[in-house]
């Protein structure tokens, strides 16, 4: 494996009587695109939130860029970014104003050029001065993604990034993400319920069920291992066992 970007060891998260993530260990190398799959409540979002440091593990450790997340949270987050279909931005600000705030938070030099680049990449440059509340849900998702690529993150965590996009825009967005990933050798970890999307995007997949990693491999390897024709069938088999 290339240089390690993420190293998770024996990670557990308990909420009172529920074990959301159960003793997970995984490693992600530089420049990999890794999919995190599993049914609702499998622990995918909990894991992503722990990798972002907004949720503290009950046990175990997380190292990102070779640094311990518990003690280097801000340094790590300066080189990472996040987008979720379930997180929004202030609706009364324009996309440009929203990104300008985040450009300052991430201390991005030449922020004006970078904002223009991100908005053009996500094909919403023409909406830059409109109030965010006037954007469609798909356009807001692309604005979130523009925020997520603004600091050229070495690690990008995406929680169902294309959930509210129509198939055409979702396809375009996937292509854009792949393009940026190649240009910047970005490491991407993302969750999705769209199996076709995961097959297109991810080189490696972790299947989570009831907080545990139950399978790992490339989409092809997993299809062979579970003797199924598609990743969706693998998903159904795992989810129903």
């Amino acid at each position, binding site marked *: 494996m290339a240089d390690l970007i993420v190293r998770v060891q024996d990670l557990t998260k308990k909420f009172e009587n529920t074990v959301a993530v159960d003793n997970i260990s995984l490693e992600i190398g530089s420049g990999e695109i890794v999919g995190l799959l599993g049914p609702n409540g499998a622990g995918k979002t909990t894991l992503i939130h722990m990798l972002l440091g907004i949720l*503290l593990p009950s046990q175990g450790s997380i190292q990102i860029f070779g640094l311990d997340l518990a003690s280097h949270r801000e340094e790590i987050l*300066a080189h990472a*970014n*996040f987008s979720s279909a379930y*997180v929004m931005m*202030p609706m009364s600000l324009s996309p440009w104003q929203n990104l300008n705030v985040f450009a300052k*938070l991430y201390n991005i030099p030449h922020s004006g050029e970078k904002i223009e680049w991100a908005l053009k990449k996500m094909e919403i440059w023409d909406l830059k001065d409109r109030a965010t509340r006037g954007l469609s849900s798909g356009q807001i998702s692309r604005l979130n993604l523009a925020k997520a690529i603004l600091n050229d993150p070495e690690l990008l965590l995406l929680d169902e990034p294309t959930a509210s996009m129509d198939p055409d825009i979702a396809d375009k967005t996937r292509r854009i993400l792949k393009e940026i990933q190649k240009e910047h050798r970005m490491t991407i970890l993302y969750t999705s319920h769209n199996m076709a999307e995961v097959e297109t995007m991810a080189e490696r997949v972790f299947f989570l069920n009831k907080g545990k990693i139950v399978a790992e491999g490339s989409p092809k390897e997993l299809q062979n291992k579970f003797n199924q024709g598609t990743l969706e069938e693998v998903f159904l088999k795992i989810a129903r066992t």
Partner: protein
Amino acid sequence: MTSLANHQPLTTNHCLIRIWAVLLRHLYLYPKSASRIMEIFYWPVLDLLVWGFLTLYIVQHPNGISRFSGYLLGAMIFWDMLFRSQQAISISFLEEVWSRNLLNLFTSPLKPIEFLLATMTLSFVKLLTAGAVTVFLAWAFFSFNLFKMGTYLFPFVLNLVAMGWAVGIVTTAIILRYGERAEVMAWGLALLIQPFAAVFYPVSVLPWFLKPVALALPATYIFEGMREVLMAGNLNPKQIWIPTLLNGFYLFMAFLFFKMMFQSARIHGRLTKLGE
């Protein structure tokens, strides 16, 4: 096509059932929400205390009405400074919750203390802007000149703002702990202080058991000090240094409390629930 011809006409009974349905939708909230139950009593009790003590003061000092009118506007302007500086902090946080932007902020390199310092700065800027307008209007319409307080005005305002900050930070921490159920705190916590902070009447009006509460509040010294300056033209220095020390202590404790609640929110996943 289905016809509505055979359907029973809508009666008053249907109307009552629909009214009951909407009423029920609200009643369902109360058994599970201490804050909603508290809110029913909170505002009337606070209003009663403030106006009750004020009435008591007027009754005890019938000749003091003219003096009272001299500082009432000053008390209102000062109280608004404290109240607004608290609100600006809590509302700034709530705006991030309402716009579901909290996760975006706290997954960036932003530190919680930096977030608080930004909201404190915003509160000060808003306060200066609003303060300039109210001070001008008080002078233009009511011939009340706040600058009569001279150089004392500066430490008075700073202490009120500092206390507003401390209450605002505590309020925000409580919202972090109890979520949107505690939103009422953003509007109500500072007002809880009002009856005891000698805003419109002196501490001497309060019953003996409430005096220690009043003396533990930095704002009490400022409002007492304001009356002293407006009436006598000078001020005992302790009216400045005691609230300054108290504010330093309360601000430190408020930061500590916020830090604890932020950490607790990260442990229990409340930050992600608030932000989504």
